[in-house]
C-alpha cells in the first residue's frame, strides 16, 4: 500500500532533522570553562527586535548595547555570537531555553520574580524604569490621566504589567513589538505608549514630534537570562560583566549607545 510507504518515508525524513537535546547528548560540547553551548562553536543569543538602542537591525547587522556586552562574553568563550530574533513571549516564559533555541537571552529584559522562576538571571547590567511616550503636546503625567484614552503597551513586558495594574478605566491596546507600538503612538492610533525609559528616550531623540512625559520609578534592572541551572554560563557572564565594569569597557559601551556616562550607583 503506497500510503504506508509514504508514511515511513516521512518518518525517516523527520528522524534526520532531529538532534537529541538530552544533557550529555550529541548537542553541545564543553569548552575549557565547562560552559555547554546549544550549538557548538557559536554563542546563540535570543532577542526580540527592534529594541533600540539595546538590540536593533542597522544596515544588515544587528547592533546595540546588549550586542556589545554579549560580544564580550562571546570573546571570553572564544566563539562568535549569533543572534536569533524571536517573539518576546518565547524568551520571557523561558520556553526558548527549554527547547534549546539559545544559550542566553539579552533583550533589554527586566529581572522579575516571575521570570526568575523560569530562567536564571545574571547580575544586573542596566537600570531601567517605565516611561510614557506621547505625541508632542501631550500632558499625561501618570497612567490615571489616560482615563478613557488609549494606551499602547508591548506584549509580555513589564510595561504591560504596569499598565494593567494601574490602568483602571484606560483603554489598553496590545502590540507585538516596540516598533509597532511606537508607530501607533506617532500615527495617533493610541494616545500614549508605555515602555522602558531607555528605548523611549532613544526614540524621541530621533522623532522630535514625540515626547516622554512621565517616568515611573519602578526600580527595574536588566539581566541576561540563561536556562535554569546553567550555572557555568551564568558565572561566566557575571565574571565578564564584573571585569567590564572595572576595566572601563562597560563605560565605553554605555557612552557609545547613550551618549552619557553611566550613573554611579
Amino acid at each position: 500500500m503506497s500510503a504506508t510507504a509514504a508514511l515511513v518515508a516521512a518518518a525517516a525524513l523527520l528522524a534526520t532533522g532531529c538532534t537529541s537535546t538530552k544533557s550529555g547528548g550529541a548537542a553541545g560540547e564543553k569548552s575549557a570553562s565547562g560552559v555547554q553551548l546549544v550549538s557548538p562553536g557559536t554563542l546563540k543569543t535570543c532577542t526580540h527586535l527592534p529594541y533600540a538602542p539595546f538590540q536593533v537591525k542597522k544596515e544588515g547587522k544587528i547592533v546595540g548595547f546588549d550586542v556589545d556586552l554579549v560580544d564580550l562574553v562571546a570573546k571570553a568563550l572564544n566563539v562568535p555570537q549569533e543572534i536569533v530574533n524571536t517573539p518576546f513571549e518565547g524568551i520571557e516564559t523561558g520556553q526558548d531555553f527549554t527547547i534549546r533555541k539559545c544559550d542566553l537571552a539579552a533583550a533589554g529584559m527586566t529581572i522579575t520574580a516571575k521570570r526568575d522562576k523560569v530562567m536564571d538571571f545574571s547580575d544586573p547590567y542596566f537600570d531601567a524604569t517605565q516611561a510614557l511616550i506621547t505625541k508632542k503636546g501631550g500632558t499625561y503625567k501618570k497612567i490615571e490621566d489616560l482615563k478613557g484614552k488609549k494606551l499602547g503597551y508591548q506584549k509580555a513586558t513589564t510595561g504591560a504589567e504596569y499598565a494593567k495594574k494601574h490602568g483602571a478605566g484606560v483603554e489598553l491596546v496590545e502590540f507585538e513589538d516596540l516598533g509597532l507600538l511606537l508607530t501607533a503612538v506617532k500615527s495617533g492610533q493610541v494616545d500614549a505608549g508605555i515602555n522602558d525609559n531607555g528605548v523611549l528616550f532613544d526614540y524621541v531623540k530621533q522623532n522630535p514630534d514625540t515626547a516622554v512625559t512621565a517616568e515611573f520609578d519602578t526600580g527595574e534592572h536588566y539581566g541576561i537570562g540563561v536556562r535554569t541551572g546553567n550555572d557555568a554560563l551564568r558565572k561566566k557572564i557575571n565574571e565578564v560583566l564584573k571585569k567590564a565594569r572595572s576595566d572601563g569597557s562597560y563605560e565605553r559601551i554605555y557612552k557609545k549607545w547613550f551618549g552619557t556616562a553611566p550613573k554611579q550607583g
Partner: protein
Amino acid sequence: MPLSRRRRARLLRGGQYAVLAAAVLVLALVADWGTLRHAFFDVAVAKALFPDIITTALVNTVLYTLLGFGFGLGLGLVLALMRLSQVPPYRWLAVTYIEFFRGVPALLVFIALGFGVPLAFEVALDMNITVMLSLGLVGAAYMAETIRAGIQAVPKGQTEAARSLGMSSGRAMRSIVIPQAFRIVLPPLTNELILLTKDSSLVYLLGLSLGQFELANFGRDALNEHKSLTPILVAGLLYLVITLPLGQLVRRLEARTAKAR
C-alpha cells in the same frame, strides 16, 4: 415614459462608472500626498533594502514555501487515499486530520510545533524542518481535499478498464487514476502554493537569525529601522513577483485542462 431595456442598462452602467470616478476623485483630494510619498515611496529607503531583500528575504520566502508545499503535497496525497480507503479507521483518521488542520489558524500550528514538539520529545528541530512541518501540515489538509476531488473526478470506467486488464487495485490507482487526477488538480494545487507563499510569513514565530529572515519579517524590521512604510510596500511588491506568475500559470493550466476535455 418607460425606458427601453437597453437604455436602462446603459444608464445603470454609466451610473456605476460615475460613482467609481467620484470615489477616486474624493480619495485623490482627501489624501495627503506629501506624507504618503514620504511614508510609502521613499526612494532612498527602498534603495537601502537591496540587494538583501532579494538575496536573503525573497530567497528564503521561496525556500520555506517550497519546503512546506513539497511535504504538504506528499502528505495530502496520502490523506486523500486514506479518505477514499475501504478501511474505516483510515477514513476516520483522515477526516479528523483534515477537519482539524483546516479549522485552526496556521499561526497556532506554528507556535504549537515550534514549542510543543521540542518540549514533548526533547528534540531540537532544525528550523527548516519546523517550517516544512508547520506549513506542510496546514497545506496538506487543503491539498488532501483537492486531490480527493480530483481522484473522484476521474471517470469510473477508467478504473474498471484497468481492473479488467488484470491490474491490481493499487496498480490501477498508481498508473491510471492518479496521473489523470493530478492533471485535474494542478490548477487548484497552484492556488494552494500561492496561499502557502503568504503563510510563510508566519515563520517569524519560530525565531530567526539574520540569514533566515523572509520578506514579511525583513519588511517589518526595515520599517522600524527607517521609520518609513516603504519596506512594507517593497516586500508586498516582491510577494507579487512570486505570486503573479503563479496566477498566470493557474490560468494557463486551466485553459489546457479545458482543451483536453
